[in-house]
């Protein structure tokens, strides 16, 4: 007797749970104004991109064309597939007159980047960030090998202290 009660109870509970699921999808079907997908090429202007989206690595420059990269190569070491290469040059400090190393070219091979974010985590001075720009396709490989520091840029004061 107990078995029959549980048996019939199972059937009704199963039907009820199925009804719940179908109610939700039925609600979505009848209310298809709240579409979550974005119509990409049409909505380029008002496109929503999440805060944590990883487009490409950029070296931030301020208005005086100064960046925060000391050339410590933490990002180059952190990168799992050799995307980043930092080349040096010797500069003379205008105040103290000492010679010291500074970055010449921050080479970034976008074609090899997997957007793993490890370089940004490794950076001790928060010099590099991930931008939201994602339209990278080209017909040639050359434009993908980027030099991130702008010509004539130099290290921001106080970063190394």
């Amino acid at each position, binding site marked *: 007797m107990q078995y029959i009660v549980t048996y019939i109870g199972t*059937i009704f509970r199963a039907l009820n749970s*199925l009804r719940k*699921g*179908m109610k*939700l*999808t*039925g609600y*979505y*079907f009848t209310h*298809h104004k*709240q*579409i*979550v*997908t974005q*119509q990409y090429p049409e909505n380029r202007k008002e496109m929503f991109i999440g805060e944590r989206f990883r487009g490409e690595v950029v070296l931030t420059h301020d208005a005086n064309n100064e960046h925060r990269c000391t050339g410590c190569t933490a990002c180059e070491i952190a990168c799992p597939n050799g995307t980043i290469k930092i080349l040096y040059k010797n500069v003379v400090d205008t105040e103290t007159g000492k010679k010291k190393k500074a970055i010449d070219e921050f080479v970034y091979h976008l074609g090899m980047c997997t957007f793993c974010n490890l370089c940004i985590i490794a950076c001790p001075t928060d010099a590099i960030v991930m931008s939201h720009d994602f339209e990278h396709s080209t017909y040639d490989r050359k434009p993908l090998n980027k030099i991130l520091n702008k010509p004539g840029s130099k290290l921001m004061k106080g970063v190394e202290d």
Partner: protein
Amino acid sequence: MLYDFSILTSKIHNWLFAHCSPFWTMMFEFIMVGVCVLGICVLLALIFVYMERKVAAFMQIRLGPNRVGPKGIFQAVADVLKLVLKEGFSPRTSDKFLFNLAPFIVMTVAMLVLAPIPFAKGLQMYDINIGVFYISAVSSISVIGILMAGWASNSKYSLLGAMRSGAQIVSYELSAGLSIIVIVALAGSMSMNDIVESQRTGWWIFKGHIPALIAFVIFIIAGTAELNRAPFDMAEAESELTAGFHTEYTGMRFAMFFMAEYVNMFTVCAIGATLFLGGWMPFHVSNFEGFNHIMDFVPPIVWFFGKTFFLIFVIMWFRWTFPRLRIDQLLTLEWKYLMPISLVNMILVALIVIMGWHF
């Protein structure tokens, strides 16, 4: 009677009979029906592919295909074009003859089952007096095609998928058959035309009390299982068997399996609509003469396709709501729940018919 197709068909028959010998009359009629069936199959597959993708999209708060043509209506055409242009590849170690034969068997069965379905008044390919029995007998042949495809592919995924499909279709055939018997008992005939005619005063789902409703629910569940569609898509089971019995198929042969699946879906829903929802009979409420008269003006073919598409929508709704069952859960559902319930249900209906309690 409005909208009677038998006038048109008998006109064509008489014209042919007057101009050719009986043999050639029959031949021409065969060819005409064959062309119609092929056309229906292709058209239905195109419509269903588009409908499926749109329904799925809306249920998941997406937009679905919207690039090819206005609102993406030519997406299915583009898909078919792609499949036609693809290479028909067969694996080196496969059994070539059976491998190439299997899709044709599955497709042929899907087309054969369409024969006794009355699409509208007088629009029926083959008025056979055991129509329902014919359908349940012929539709089982598709298992052979599926097993053949699985075995001939010489791949473990295909074989496992085919075996599962076999177990599933053989089990669920029982409860589908038993729920069909409920309506056969109520209507007192196996002919599809007689069953439709017996619902002139009201559809069986309303006239047959609770047992007809139970039979309808069981029929829809068993029908979904026989179609190998989610939540019963054990035969395909993308996450475990890549694509089941049609893993090794490409191009047009894959398209034939695909088309057969959609034609079968149409057939199951058409049978469900004919047996439980009155086929092409309009919706009538007794004692509302004016209302009934308005309903009569809607052509029967619209009623038939409306009901069928409603059931197809329900089956798509299942697919995009429920997760897939495990194989043991699948067999438990059939042998421990659907089958005993439909047996008890059948006895109840027998009682109702004998005592004359139905309307």
